[in-house]
């Protein structure tokens, strides 16, 4: 477990608030990320995700609370500390007149990484063909890859990725997350922000949902699902003449709706799900077919966006 100094913790935020010109952008955020963990920040535009990252990168100072990153205050972190961190800003920009290879070499020198390592990284992000071209000719996807390449320089222990896949097509998006996953396999802690839960399904160890500068929920995806308490939808096709009996039997277990003579829809909570299934199987031949629809990720997201009260 955590030793003195918290060496098992990569990021520790305690009661962090940030005001810009009197307006609170981040309010009372507590967040702890373990080493090697893939943490994802989900939230709407202006929820404070980018500000939170800037605080963790030491680009701006908290108005209240404390920020610890890799056991140091990021605002005063030593150079060695910064070398261990990779950052991909939202819609990353580079000097257009430079070639891809030159851009990466420049950042490598600044980070004290041997320039000969750049070729391998460019290959890893799939830019080896375009390395000799000016960045101004790059597509959005290629710029993002170059952005990830610079974040990967020097095998960082901690990666900050601010909406890394916004504006990428689904194939590129998947490749991008595959790359990030391969990094986390080698022990890199990552903090990724995104708009969409769908995108990060299976890509996150834990998810923190932000709304108006507050983290309204934080946990694994299944914990968030449970916590949201959204109903599961069960649709049954019922044999001729049994509809009334089936409806009567199942009505106490959830909210029941008759679709037509042969169909019944029932929404029930996760906790009564198994009781419902047993009851259905007891009904025997009367139930001809069954579809189970768990709450969609978008529904979960919307639930937290609409219902969550600021802490």
């Amino acid at each position, binding site marked *: 477990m955590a030793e003195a100094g918290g060496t098992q913790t990569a990021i520790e935020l305690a009661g962090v608030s940030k005001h*810009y010109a009197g307006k609170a952008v981040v309010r009372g955020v507590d967040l702890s990320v373990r080493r090697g963990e893939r943490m994802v920040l989900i939230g709407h535009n202006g929820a404070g995700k980018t500000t939170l990252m*800037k605080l963790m*990168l*030491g*680009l*701006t*100072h908290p108005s209240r609370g404390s920020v610890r990153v890799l056991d140091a205050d990021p605002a005063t972190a030593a*150079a*060695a500390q*910064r*070398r261990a*961190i990779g*950052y991909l*800003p939202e*819609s*990353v*920009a*580079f*000097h257009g*007149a*430079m070639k891809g290879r030159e851009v990466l070499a*420049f*950042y490598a*020198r*600044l*980070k*004290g990484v041997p320039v000969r390592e750049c070729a391998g990284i460019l290959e890893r992000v799939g830019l080896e063909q375009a390395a000799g071209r000016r960045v101004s000719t790059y597509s959005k996807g290629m710029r993002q890859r170059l952005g990830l390449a*610079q974040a990967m320089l020097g095998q960082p222990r901690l990666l900050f990725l601010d909406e890394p896949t916004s504006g990428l097509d689904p194939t590129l998006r998947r490749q991008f997350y595959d790359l990030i996953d391969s990094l986390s396999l080698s022990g890199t802690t990552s903090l990724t922000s995104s708009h969409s839960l769908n995108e990060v399904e299976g890509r996150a160890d834990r998810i923190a949902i932000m709304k108006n500068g507050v983290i309204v929920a934080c946990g694994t995806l299944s914990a968030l699902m449970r916590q949201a308490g959204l109903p599961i939808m069960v649709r049954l096709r019922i044999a001729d003449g049994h509809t009334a009996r089936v409806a009567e039997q199942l009505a106490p277990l959830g909210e029941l709706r008759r679709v037509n003579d042969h169909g019944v829809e029932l929404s029930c909570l996760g906790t009564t799900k198994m009781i419902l299934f047993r009851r259905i199987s007891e009904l025997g031949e009367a139930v001809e077919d069954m579809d189970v629809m768990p709450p969609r990720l978008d529904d979960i997201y919307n639930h937290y966006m609409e219902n969550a009260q600021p802490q």
Partner: protein
Amino acid sequence: MRAIAILAANEFLDGLRNRWVAAAIVLLGATALALLLVGSAPAGATRASALDVSVVSLTSLSVYLLPLIALLLAFDALVGEFERGTMLLLLTYPVARWQVVAGKFCGHMLILFTAVLVGYGGAALGTVLFAGQGVLGWQAYLTMMGSSLLLGAVFVALGYLVSVLVRERSTAAGAAIVLWLIFVVLYDLGLLGLLLADHEQRIGQGLFSILMLFSPSDTYRLLNLTAFEAVSQAAGLAGVAARAGFGIPLLLGLMFLWVLAPLGATMAIFHRREL
């Protein structure tokens, strides 16, 4: 130190890539060459050599050109990176903010140095070698090159101050032009107007000379036109120089102050800036 060198090299390479260095060399070289060749004509009857005479004309020209080149290089330096979004990334690297300013400054000064050395130096060398001019007055010419560089440094630093204070590139460009107009044109015009309006000579020579020290371009002029006797004579400024009585150390010190003060202010403001 390493970070400053990397940033300076990047800035210089950038100047090579976008032809800034080439353009500045051509501009300075062509004007210097023209003035050197023309300069041999009026030198005939006086005791001044062609190089001495051309120091006078080149000084008058540099006072306009170098601040302009320097400001054009510098106004974009910080605000441009903020606007493009490259500054955010840069500052997450192991680089301190003052090092960003220092690195850019070194890179831009390297560009100016190359332009002055190749442009002015090349033109003088060409004149001496091929036009059969004497090398008399080379000390004054070298002083002119060095002080021109110093004048450039002043305006690079002033350009950074503009660049860190405004929020948009276009504002910075406008402010840079205004700065140039004030320090290079309007201040002198104002002084001239004051002198003309002052029929009863209530403003003494002393006060007038001191007023000149508040403008880096006038300080530069005084430095060049009074440093060497031969140049003073060519400029017809011998009298002024004698009466102004500012020593070279004072003038040089003032120029350095004009570099360091805005540069320091830029670093301080940038350091406190929230991103």
